[in-house]
């Protein structure tokens, strides 16, 4: 029996001896090898899927239509100005077939409706991945040639955010994420520049620490630094996971560094009244001042009740010093010129009452275990070093410490960060969304020496933040300008004169929007002068409890003096006017009875306004819209008329539909509404 080697040798000898035979066989082999190439090309993935698709639609009732729509071969969307070459439709053949709504297998699923056409943006602008690829693996997953895999569906809203830098109604997650970035001050350390060359701004209000020693104790600072959430569940301050010694030293530094306020602002002696204040009276003052519109307090069930514009007050008595609180309640701006807290013009007894009421909200457990020895100079020096290292001055104003610039990495293009530049920790999925989410969820898991603190975000908030961050991509910077929908510019409107000063003191802009600036908690006042009658406005400022008594968040009573009120009212009536409506074009009263009656008919039958509004408090029940029982004393006739014609033109987004009313109907309804006046008796009662 021949050995293998011998056989090989004899075979090769035979080959060499007879080159013609070898030539024949080798040539044939070459032919076979060359024939594989086109065959391999023919059995491509996309052709396979197209055949599957044809089989799928073959038995359907609408097969003829679908077959007519079907185009074989590689299909491509080419958008040169977006840099898009998408061949996704080569496999995803049924993307825009509305009738395939019941098909759930990929790649033949129909695309759910979106407000953009497929040939307008292609696929990868939203879904990422590699549009040019014609194989599943290359198109969907990250490869050496393309690090950007498909964006998981849960983050898909991030793609809307590449062009849309304003909140969209259909992208709640993205909107929430962006709001969180601003509200938790993420963008203070990590700057995010937008394609319109603006920069995202934070909306949180970190207090200045210049005079912190007057406000609170070192023990409280220590407890707060160790765990802000133990003081207030709603705290936006993150946990820096400081050691006991580090928290001790930082608190020592902050107290030692604090500059005492002038004695005329904070009297050194406590201003506690001699007699114990009545808690019921305090609670009622707290209630009628509508403190809860901005401040929340934890109820017995552990839920926060109240607004989130100001800090949570559940344990505030354990935090602030009484003399400081007295001064703060008297005029918050002397301590913090940027505060959102309005200056209530409380009387001294009211101040004392309020102070005592607020001070009563304490938590004895908060600092039960905090015992700090007097600070040494080394501790203070170390505290200063820590404050610098942790970048406290990025958010807080601290005497003697410069606000650092570019404290943390810029995130303007984080959504396009190459995987090669990320350092993953073991056990995590190696994708960009997972990386970002992990960084937000547990930043110190990437290294205990990192400075990024621990926030208490829920899983949904992490999702939302990740979505928002994924929207800041390279692509959003390279989009053609026609596609960029910039963020609304931040209005810096500031009313002038004495009225302006008053409005700043009262912080009107915290709730109301005027000329684009301000919050959205309360109505926009830009055209208030056109809308309302002077007398009503004056009365309202005196006692704001008249409109919509059912609401929890309401306009507080600021105890303005008559002269201050007059200044404000005059300012409103002269400045906040729209040029589109002539305020004096219609009379405030004197409409014919017939017209009023016609309006009544329209109100109750044709337009059924009573489903949302009340004119007759005894009979009507609707209270979606404001009650109209005294609307004739409140609004001007031209405003009512134009409002009825097109409510959204006067206040965008208002619920009342545009009924496409004729001038005649609107006129009659105006007459009817203007007849609803304050009765003299009721006026007298008040």
């Amino acid at each position, binding site marked *: 029996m021949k050995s293998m080697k011998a056989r090989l040798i004899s075979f090769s000898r035979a080959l060499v001896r007879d080159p013609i035979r070898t030539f024949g066989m080798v040539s044939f082999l*070459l032919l076979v*090898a*060359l024939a594989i190439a086109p065959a391999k090309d023919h059995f491509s993935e996309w052709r396979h899927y197209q055949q599957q698709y044809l089989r799928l639609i073959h038995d359907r009732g609408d097969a003829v239509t679908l077959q007519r729509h079907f185009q074989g071969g590689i299909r491509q969307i080419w958008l040169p100005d977006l840099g898009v070459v998408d061949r996704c439709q080569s496999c995803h053949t049924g993307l825009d077939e509305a009738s395939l709504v019941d098909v759930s297998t990929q790649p033949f699923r129909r695309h759910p409706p979106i407000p953009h056409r497929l040939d307008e943006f292609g696929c990868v602008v939203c879904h990422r991945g590699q549009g040019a690829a014609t194989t599943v693996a290359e198109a969907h997953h990250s490869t*050496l*040639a393309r690090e950007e895999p498909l964006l998981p569906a849960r983050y898909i809203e991030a793609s809307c955010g590449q062009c849309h830098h304003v909140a969209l109604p259909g992208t709640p997650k993205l909107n929430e994420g962006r709001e969180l970035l601003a509200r938790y001050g993420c963008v203070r350390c990590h700057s995010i520049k937008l394609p319109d060359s603006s920069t995202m701004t934070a909306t949180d209000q970190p207090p200045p620490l210049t005079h912190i020693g007057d406000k609170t104790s070192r023990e409280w600072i220590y407890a707060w630094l160790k765990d802000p959430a133990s003081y207030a569940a709603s705290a936006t301050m993150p946990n820096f996971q400081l050691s006991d010694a580090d928290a001790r030293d930082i608190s020592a530094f902050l107290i030692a560094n604090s500059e005492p306020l002038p004695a005329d602002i904070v009297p050194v002696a406590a201003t506690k009244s001699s007699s114990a204040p009545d808690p019921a009276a305090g609670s009622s003052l707290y209630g009628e001042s509508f403190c809860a519109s901005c401040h929340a307090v934890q109820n017995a069930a552990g839920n926060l009740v109240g607004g989130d514009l100001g800090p949570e007050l559940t344990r505030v008595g354990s935090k602030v010093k009484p003399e400081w609180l007295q001064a703060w309640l008297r005029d918050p701006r002397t301590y913090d010129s940027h505060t959102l807290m309005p200056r209530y013009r409380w009387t001294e007894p009211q101040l004392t009452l309020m102070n005592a009421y607020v001070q009563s909200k304490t938590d004895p457990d908060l600092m039960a275990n905090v015992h700090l020895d007097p600070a040494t100079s080394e501790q203070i020096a170390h505290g200063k070093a820590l404050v610098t290292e942790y970048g406290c001055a990025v958010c807080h104003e601290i005497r003697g410490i410069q606000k650092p610039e570019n404290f943390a990495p810029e995130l303007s293009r984080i959504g396009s960060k190459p995987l090669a530049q990320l350092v993953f920790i073991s056990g995590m999925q190696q994708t960009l969304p997972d990386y970002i989410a992990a960084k937000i969820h547990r930043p110190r898991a990437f290294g205990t020496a990192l400075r990024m603190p621990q926030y208490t975000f829920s899983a949904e908030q992490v999702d939302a933040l990740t979505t928002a961050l994924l929207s800041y991509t390279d692509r959003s910077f390279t989009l053609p300008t026609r596609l960029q929908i910039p963020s609304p510019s931040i209005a810096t409107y500031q009313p002038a004169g004495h009225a302006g000063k008053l409005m700043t003191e009262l912080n009107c802009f915290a709730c109301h929007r005027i000329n684009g600036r301000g919050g959205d908690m309360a109505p926009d006042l830009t055209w208030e002068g056109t809308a309302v009658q002077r007398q009503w406005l004056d009365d309202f400022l005196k006692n704001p409890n008249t409109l919509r008594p059912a609401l929890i968040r309401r306009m507080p009573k600021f105890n303005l003096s008559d002269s201050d009120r007059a200044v404000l009212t005059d300012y409103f009536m002269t400045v906040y006017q729209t040029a589109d409506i002539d305020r004096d074009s219609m009379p405030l009263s004197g409409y014919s009875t017939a017209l009023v009656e016609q309006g009544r008919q329209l109100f109750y039958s044709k337009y059924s306004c009573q489903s949302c509004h009340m004119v007759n408090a005894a009979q009507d029940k609707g209270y979606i819209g404001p009650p109209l029982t005294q609307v004739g004393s409140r609004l001007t006739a031209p405003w009512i008329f134009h409002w009825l014609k097109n409510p959204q033109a006067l206040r965008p987004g208002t619920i009342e539909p545009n009924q496409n009313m004729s001038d005649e109907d609107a006129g009659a309804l105006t007459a009817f509404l203007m007849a609803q006046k304050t009765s003299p008796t009721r006026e007298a009662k008040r």
Partner: protein
Amino acid sequence: MTEPKDFVAGVGSDIRKSQKRVLFVTRRTSAQVKVSDEEQVQTFPEGLLRIALAIEILAIALVLISLFFNAPLEGIADPTNTPNPAKAPWYFLGLQEMLHYFPPVVAGVLIPTVLVVALVVIPYFNVNIEADGLFLKNRRRRLSIFYVAALGFSLFLWFFDVYVALVPTLIVAAFMLIAAFSSPHSSSRSRRYLASKPVSWWVMTWFLFELIVLTIVGTFFRGPGWSWVLPWRG
């Protein structure tokens, strides 16, 4: 031209049977030309067939490789994002490895220039024609030159910490030492073989050895920051 001819010319008889070529033998040509009478075959088809065969087999191999191994294609060129390590094509990795140790002038200029010049002059270099064993003539002088050169190179490489090149150098030097102390009539076939090698052979072998080692090291054993990595780990 009245002088007698410098040469004689002859021609074969039957051109149809087997064509022959004319050779002019000038006076300067050595008269002791002896060419063994070898069996010859027609280039067509014998030679061409074999060439075609060789090329066909190569083509089959390349076609099969091309069918099953895709050429690398990475992300689009990005001047702002340097991959780590950034490597030149594989045939320059030996050079890049050298650049890691030596100043650019040495590794990037001196060495390649010397190499090319050396390659060009090899055929013109006298010792090659003799094709004698390196240490067969002038043994003493050549041995001392060898010692100096080997020591010099080794020290030079050691000084620059080029252990990657030092090791092959030492190995080649060791073999040269064996050659130096082997007789051409040695009973061992390998020693006989080494002893018969001329200096150009040694230089070329050294170059080949270095080239292979450096290219392999540069290709497989170099990771981020041109640090030493083992290819089979991760």
